[in-house]
């Protein structure tokens, strides 16, 4: 991914690599492909007289995005806010659990299977239960669903990072007569940061998915998920697709933000 492109400056240090990925020359083929797909879609719908409930034309969806823009933005903000709150909570929880699991063997053996089991819990199973537990007038159930989904990848990534201490660093800390806490502070925790960031990057788009899916199971009707199901139920297919497009944009935004944070934090590292 960070392979130097043809326009790479000779002798540039590795720090420059992420920036290179954003050069126009690397982006335009993907953009052109996306436009081509949209054009083809439009053609198929128009020429093939595809009914709107099956597939609305991109132009119709674009029209709906324009018409509904004032609704889309606050709606996306609600879902995005839930995703962000859940992401933050799940990130902290996953990281704290991983640090505790790494620092105490007993705790590690207790908590690791539980967290890994949580990864097997389908969010569709949790969402209705949380909604009944906390009532349908609060955002808490959605945020909890997101937090559960996020905790797992962050925990797994952090735990892996904490386990991977280079032998030479371990020896060095022994030679320096470092206490267990000093080992954690000087080597294990900072060494795990790239892994933690990878966990965050993987969890960020998943948080958006979880936030949207959680809305399908009742509760407040103010987010993208509930708008999509409402529009679809009212046969407003182009409008439903407009909200789907907003969901995609939100997911991409989280993905890119995760990527950006990861790159900023791990700048100047080789591993």
């Amino acid at each position, binding site marked *: 991914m960070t392979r130097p492109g043809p326009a790479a400056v000779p002798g540039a*240090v590795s720090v420059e690599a992420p920036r290179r990925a954003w050069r126009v020359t690397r982006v335009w083929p993907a953009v052109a492909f996306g436009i081509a797909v949209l054009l083809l879609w439009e053609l198929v719908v128009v020429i093939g007289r595809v009914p709107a409930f099956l597939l609305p034309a991109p132009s119709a969806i674009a029209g709906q995005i324009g018409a509904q823009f004032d609704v889309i933005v606050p709606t996306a903000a609600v879902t995005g806010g839930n995703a962000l709150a859940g992401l933050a909570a799940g990130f902290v929880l996953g990281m704290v659990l991983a640090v505790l699991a790494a620092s105490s063997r007993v705790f590690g053996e207790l908590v690791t299977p539980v967290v890994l089991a949580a990864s097997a819990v389908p969010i569709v199973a949790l969402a209705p239960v949380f909604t009944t537990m906390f009532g349908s007038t609060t955002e808490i159930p959605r945020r909890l669903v997101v937090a559960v989904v996020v905790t797992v990848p962050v925990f797994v990534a952090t735990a892996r990072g904490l386990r991977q201490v280079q032998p*030479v660093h371990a020896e*060095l*800390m022994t*030679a*320096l*007569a470092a206490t267990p806490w000093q080992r954690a502070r*000087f080597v294990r925790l900072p060494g795990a940061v790239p892994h933690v960031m990878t966990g965050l990057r993987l969890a960020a788009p998943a948080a958006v998915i979880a936030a949207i899916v959680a809305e399908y199971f009742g509760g407040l009707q103010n987010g993208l998920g509930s708008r999509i199901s409402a529009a679809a139920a009212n046969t407003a297919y182009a409008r439903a697709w407009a909200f789907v497009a907003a969901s995609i944009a939100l997911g991409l935004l989280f993905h890119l933000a995760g990527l950006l944070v990861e790159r900023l934090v791990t700048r*100047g590292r080789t*591993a």
Partner: protein
Amino acid sequence: MTEAGAVELTGVHKRFGDVHALDGIDLEVGGGEFVSLIGPSGCGKSTLLRIVADLEQPTDGEVLVGGKPPRRARLDQDYGIAFQQAGLLEWRTVAENVELPLHVHGIGRAERRARATELLELVGLAEFAGSRPSELSGGMQQRVAIARALAPSPKLLLMDEPFGALDEMTRERMQAELLRIARETGAGVLFVTHSIPEAVVLSDRVVVMSPRPGRITEIVDGCRLGRGMAAGGAGGAGGVGKDSAGEAAELGPADVEDVRESGTFFAAITAVREALRKGHE
């Protein structure tokens, strides 16, 4: 010899299961003396160094580091250590890496910074203080690791093939550098290597070891470019560099170059090579 030896080993044995890694090692490293351990892979030279560093426990025998048990010496930070890999922490700057031993032991920020500046000056990397290790070449990283080992001003420097991964040219430059540093700091050095010229050019004495079980075959006089303070049992006035101990004449890379072409150098190489061959029979 007035002070206690930097390292005293008496009858040291080490077994890993059925493998007899070290067998009856007796060795003394004087204060400020440069001693190399050389031998084929598996002769236990690294194990011996690790025992001195308290990273490994001897099965039998007595080990004293600056007159103390190795554990005490390690806790008191009496030695500095450098490994084959530089092992720098890549999330810290070069200066912060040099400061690490002081940071771990709670020395204040200003004092740490001052010491790091001084040491980076010593290893010729002052301008890279704010750089990340990943921006440095292998040889430069190894110099940072040596500066880090020197940070607590140890009386003893333990080095486990620190130049093993470097190319020949860098390696020779680093050797000259290390000799100068050892002289300037007055630290004793225990140096593990498998390069005969390296051992000879650096050392006051070269300890030749043989494998399975790891034993000392012979102790050969090196080029004595360091302070040349004859320590332990090693006699001989074969010093090329200098003969009086206290005097601190400049030791430039050119002097080290001269030594590499001297008769003493080749004679010592031959002696080490013969001792190694003897150990292999």
